[in-house]
């Protein structure tokens, strides 16, 4: 990527910028971040000779600049989305230079969340690619004086087959740039058979640099003259500083000053938590200085938050009727008839993202403008949050997006970037705010703690005639609006109101719960607890009826059909996608169940003593996933996972290798949820702090081998980053039941409830 430096200096138009200001410093000190060197002067793509769209520019030397407008946090979005454009443009990927977009509304939605980067990119990127290709084709036709219909692209050149003439994209760029940009209706997309990259994929653009230790993460951003900051946050949400020792931290070598940060105005949203920052000339000194702050806190209303008590309250609420989110038939009438009734309760505690790279951001405030390097899933949210905090226009917040050392939803919330901006303004220097691991674990936007209750009436064959399900959890909406206690339609649509079981009487309810910590999106979000409850309960019914788990699950799903969820859950939003393009199709759900069963050797292998297999299926982010997990449980109850088979129908898969990696990773992520994930509070203070008391799965604990089976599909692309997570925990717990006869209704396994 150092090539980009040459490109920058070669360009006269950028000379002025290069010789002054922050950009120069970034060029000198963080060459690996130069792909974020776009400034208000525009991107390389903008300044290329032919640039029919903000996402692409083609220069006379044939270089194709593609703008990655989504963040790279390990899902390969930064590569896979531009790859779609490159394919439609028929460009040679080797001649593509990626540049990372700054936050800017002209790129449309830049949020890398909700597993929708490829889904969105499949439309937007193909349009951009087809536009550029058509302009190049028209330019070639004009040059040769032949009809456009006789010309076509062939890997970075346009050819006229009849006369065997060829012209490269670079050669045609200037002429193409003079042509009008075609309208959408004029575009022709390549047929699937002509795809070069989609369906085959490409390794991460940054792979070699990552392995060389040269990739630029947010944590690695440096500017000349910068100082480091570490913030002592209120231990209880909403707490305020009463007093602190300004002098003592200065005794630590390298500490320069302390700066208070004002508490947030409720609701907290993405505002910084407040507290006291210690500024130092290295990260460690800033960490040490905090130990001498001796802050006295006014803890406020959330100091009464105790997880033990709160859990009981959630469970109580789940036993009572809630708000109806979906209704089919009349469950009460069936329950009133008596017969065989089953009921069960499930529980999952708060979870922390624990991205390997904790929250961190570098900000440089000068002359009413601030430039930020933040590993963020939402550079536009950085802009709006920082603008609000500093009282400056959004346009004066330039947010560069280096690589993220993991995101999982944590880095959708830019509180840490706002801290850096506030502190840079206060100090008058570039400031890098570094969260310690302890800060990360203690001050997260946690995955909601949830209690679920399910009740079913069974006919003589063991099939449910009525099914009632209730979930209770502090909703994500509480982060944005005070007194929000019910999940919204979006949250309930994550695997609760869209459960596609073929049951004539069905009701989904949601009960109220107050938040006492910040609640946020966490890889696959509410699907985690919804799938855990529904898929565990389905398996309980299978066993209670003496049926094979796979066979029973298929019967619950019922015949192949399109489920009209809105008919029974009017507010259902289908992940923001149209039900025409992305219907809930039980044929696809059945197929992944059958595929996972077949590939895992379900029913064909006899597991040994202490071993067992479990299955779960779940649709999330418009993708259908069935997972079969095999476990070995030893005498001490220690669980090993020798194999996982996951069948995935995500529609068209642009990058299969990266997709497989996402599902392998989801199995490990899921293992952490099952084994040990638990965040608890005592008197409002989070009790965990680092990987010792918030353990995540290690190499000897994760599945030994996860095999991912991708269903070949022509359906439009759906998500792959998150959908592997939801079915994993219930599949493990169903396997543990098969192995030991012990039913796990509460996670994690390490919880005393399972002792």
């Amino acid at each position, binding site marked *: 990527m150092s090539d980009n430096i040459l490109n920058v200096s070669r360009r006269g138009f950028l000379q002025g910028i290069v010789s002054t200001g922050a950009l120069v410093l970034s060029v000198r000190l963080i060459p690996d971040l130069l792909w974020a060197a776009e400034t208000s002067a525009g991107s390389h793509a903008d300044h290329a000779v032919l640039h029919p769209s903000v996402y692409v520019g083609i220069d006379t030397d044939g270089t194709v600049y593609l703008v990655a407008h989504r963040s790279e946090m390990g899902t390969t979005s930064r590569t896979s989305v531009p790859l779609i454009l490159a394919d439609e443009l028929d460009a040679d990927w080797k001649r593509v230079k990626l540049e990372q977009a700054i936050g800017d509304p002209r790129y449309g939605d830049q949020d890398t969340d909700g597993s929708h980067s490829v889904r969105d990119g499949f439309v937007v990127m193909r349009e951009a690619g087809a536009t550029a290709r058509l302009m190049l084709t028209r330019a070639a036709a004009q040059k040769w004086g032949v009809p456009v219909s006789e010309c076509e692209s062939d890997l970075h050149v346009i050819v006229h087959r009849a006369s065997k003439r060829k012209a490269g994209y670079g050669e045609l760029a200037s002429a193409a740039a003079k042509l009008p940009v075609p309208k959408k209706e004029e575009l022709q997309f390549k047929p699937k058979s002509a795809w070069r990259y989609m369906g085959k994929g490409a390794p991460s653009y940054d792979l070699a640099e990552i*392995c*060389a230790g*040269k990739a630029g993460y947010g944590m690695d951003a440096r500017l000349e003259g910068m100082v480091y900051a570490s913030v002592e946050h209120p231990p209880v949400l909403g707490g305020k500083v009463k007093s602190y020792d300004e002098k003592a931290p200065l005794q630590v070598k390298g500490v320069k000053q302390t700066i208070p940060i004002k508490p947030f105005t409720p609701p907290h949203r993405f505002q910084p938590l407040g507290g006291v920052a210690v500024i130092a000339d290295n990260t460690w000194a800033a960490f040490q200085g905090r130990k001498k702050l001796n802050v006295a806190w006014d803890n406020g209303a959330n100091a009464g938050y105790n997880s033990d008590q709160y859990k009981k309250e959630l469970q109580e609420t789940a036993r009572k009727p809630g708000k109806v989110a979906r209704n089919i038939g009349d469950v009460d009438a069936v329950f009133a008839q008596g017969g065989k009734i089953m009921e069960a309760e499930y529980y999952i505690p708060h979870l922390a993202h624990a991205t390997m790279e904790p929250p961190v951001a570098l900000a440089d405030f000068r002359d009413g403008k601030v430039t930020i390097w933040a590993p963020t899933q939402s550079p536009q949210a950085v802009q709006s949050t920082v603008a609000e905090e500093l009282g400056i226009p959004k346009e004066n917040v330039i947010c560069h997006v280096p690589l*993220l050392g993991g995101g999982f939803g944590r880095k959708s919330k830019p509180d840490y970037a706002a801290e850096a901006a506030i502190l840079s303004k206060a100090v008058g220097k570039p400031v890098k705010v570094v969260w310690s691991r302890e800060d990360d674990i203690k001050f997260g936007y946690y995955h909601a703690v949830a209690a679920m209750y399910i009740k079913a009436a069974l006919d003589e064959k063991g099939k449910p005639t009525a099914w009632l399900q209730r979930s209770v959890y502090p909703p994500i909406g509480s982060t944005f609006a005070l007194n929000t206690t019910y999940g919204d339609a979006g949250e309930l649509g994550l695997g609760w109101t869209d459960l596609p079981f073929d049951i004539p009487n069905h009701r989904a309810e949601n009960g109220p719960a107050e938040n006492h910590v910040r609640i946020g999106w966490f890889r696959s979000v509410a699907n985690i607890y919804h799938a855990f409850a529904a898929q565990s309960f389905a398996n309980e019914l299978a066993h209670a009826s003496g049926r094979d788990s796979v066979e029973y699950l298929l019967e619950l799903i019922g015949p192949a059909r399109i489920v009209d969820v809105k008919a029974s859950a009017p507010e259902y939003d289908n992940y923001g996608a149209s039900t025409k393009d992305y219907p809930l199709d039980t044929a696809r759900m059945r197929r992944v169940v059958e595929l996972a069963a077949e590939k895992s050797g379900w029913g064909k292998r006899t597991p040994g003593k202490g071993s067992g297999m479990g299955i779960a299926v779940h649709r999330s982010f418009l993708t259908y996933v069935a997972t079969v997990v095999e476990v070995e449980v030893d005498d001490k109850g220690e669980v090993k996972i020798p194999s996982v088979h996951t069948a995935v129908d995500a529609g068209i898969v642009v990058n299969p290798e990266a997709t497989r*990696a996402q599902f392998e990773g989801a199995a490990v992520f899921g*293992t952490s949820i099952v084994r040990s994930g638990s965040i608890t509070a005592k008197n409002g203070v989070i009790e965990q702090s680092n990987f010792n008391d918030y353990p*995540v799965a290690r*190499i000897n604990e994760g599945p030994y081998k996860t095999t991912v089976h991708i269903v070949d599909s022509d359906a439009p692309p759906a998500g792959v980053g998150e959908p592997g997570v939801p079915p994993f925990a219930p599949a493990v717990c169903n396997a543990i039941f098969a192995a030991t006869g012990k039913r796990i209704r509460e996670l994690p396994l390490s919880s005393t409830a399972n002792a």
Partner: protein
Amino acid sequence: MQIKVNGVERSYDGDPKLPLLWYLRDVLGLTGTKYGCGMALCGACTVHQDGKAILSCVTDVSQASGKEITTIEAISKNGLHPVQQKWIEFNVPQCGYCQPGQIMKAISLLKENPKPSDEDIEAGMAGNICRCGTYQRIRAAIKAAAGENA
């Protein structure tokens, strides 16, 4: 005090208790070595001291003085180390943040044990967390690298 990093002898007169990790990252600007926990719990900060993997977050600069420290940036003189090449071949990284530490640990492991079994790999690599969950590819890449060493 004197400290040799990536073949270059340097003198340092700051806080002797500064962990090597922050000396490398904040003082020298060698950002390939990562911070993950600061408590010897995750392995992200793994570097080599006289050719053996150590955790730089719990090693004071003064303890590293007089030793030869090598970071990911200099693990291979020319091009990529065979272990790094295997990492690329097996497409190991997701976010990649833990990978410099994983690679440094794996190189050290293979040096001590050129033909590690599955158990050896698990025991050797258990100190290195990958939150993205790339473990099975790490195992495969190490095995492949071992094959080449043989």
